């Protein structure tokens, strides 16, 4: 291993994804050793690792901000609760509706959609307005076939600023030909309780 490497040269740069695995402690001991040997002689890859650490820190902050729309699992919610976050959860019955809102001190907002997924290979989550027109499609969401529900985190930032409105969530099974079958429909009547601009 040469010791003349500087910030402008590296004959065998480590891929960012591998550096991220290193940062996440996800490498095997031998791979981790190889990465550390390299980093101890290569400032160029050290710079890249700093970029990766900054990205990881940014992603952690973003994940904890509750501002993303994303399908999550129970384990995620349990951890969020254990770390002191206020989780507001709504679980309308399949084919039913629910009144909902968010408070200023809520940290996460999730919809728990009860559904039978045993016959679906690909599942989409469609968000529609109160007339039923699709506004957004979350395609091929990750689901557990044996799970009793789909948990979707909605952006708390968006919800806190959102006017009083009605949204319909539809879980759709999509087959290889692209044909769709409704697995469940859920209506959310959102009431704004946080002061904001006129609606």
């Amino acid at each position, binding site marked *: *291993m040469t*010791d*003349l490497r500087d910030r402008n040269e590296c004959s065998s740069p480590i891929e*960012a*994804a591998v550096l*991220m*695995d*290193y*940062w*996440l*402690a*996800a490498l095997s001991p031998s791979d981790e050793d190889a990465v*550390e*040997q390299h*980093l*101890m*002689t290569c*400032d160029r890859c*050290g*710079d890249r*690792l*700093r*970029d*990766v*650490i*900054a*990205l*990881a*820190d*940014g*992603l*952690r*902050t*973003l*994940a*904890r901000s509750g*501002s*993303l*729309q*994303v*399908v*999550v*699992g*129970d*384990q*995620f919610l349990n*951890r*969020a609760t254990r*770390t002191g976050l206020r989780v507001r959860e709504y679980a309308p019955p399949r084919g039913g509706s629910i009144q909902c809102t968010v408070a200023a001190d809520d940290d996460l907002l999730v919809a728990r959609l009860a559904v039978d997924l045993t016959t679906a290979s690909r599942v989409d989550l469609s968000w529609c307005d109160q007339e039923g027109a699709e506004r957004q499609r*979350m*395609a*091929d*969401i*990750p*689901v*557990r*076939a*044996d*799970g009793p529900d789909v948990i979707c*985190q909605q952006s708390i930032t968006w919800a806190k600023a959102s006017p009083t409105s009605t949204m319909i969530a539809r879980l759709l099974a999509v087959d290889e030909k692209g044909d769709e079958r409704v697995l469940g429909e859920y209506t959310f009547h959102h009431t704004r309780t946080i002061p904001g601009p006129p609606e």
Partner: protein
Amino acid sequence: MCIGLRDADLVSRIAEGDREAEAEMCRRMAPRIRLYGLRHLRSAPTADDLVQQVLLKVLEALRNARLREPDKLAQFVLGTCRMTVLDLRRSSQRQEELLAMYGGELAPVQPPMPGLDDRQLARCVQALKERERSVVVMTFYDDHTAAETARALETSEANVRVIRHRAVRQLRACMGAAK
């Protein structure tokens, strides 16, 4: 001037009492030691402590010509990092006296951590495919392992790693990072 010297030459000069060579060794190794510390200790202040402790031990060894293979300075520093982290985990109060004596001299300037445009990052994450976004959020929220994420999403660990690699590549590209 010691800036262009090979590690092995620095080692020889330090054994001869060259203070400039010592400063260059510290300047060269400190950022690398700090990265090691950040990875294993997950704390910037503790990583800074690690830098001082490791440099102290390495300097002492080099001044006394105890490194028998001068071209293996990097490996020696890495080995010292590993031993010191183990020691740190055993006791957080070690070497405080030595640090009080020499600490000020062993704190070379560190490269700043890069800044990140939080809004752009949010846009980039929202642009990921659903599975990628779920894996990213569950991984980074609380340092979920691939196994934990795989269980939550009913997929394999290998698949979680593939999805995470793809997402990281896409995010770096979206954030404008050089490969």
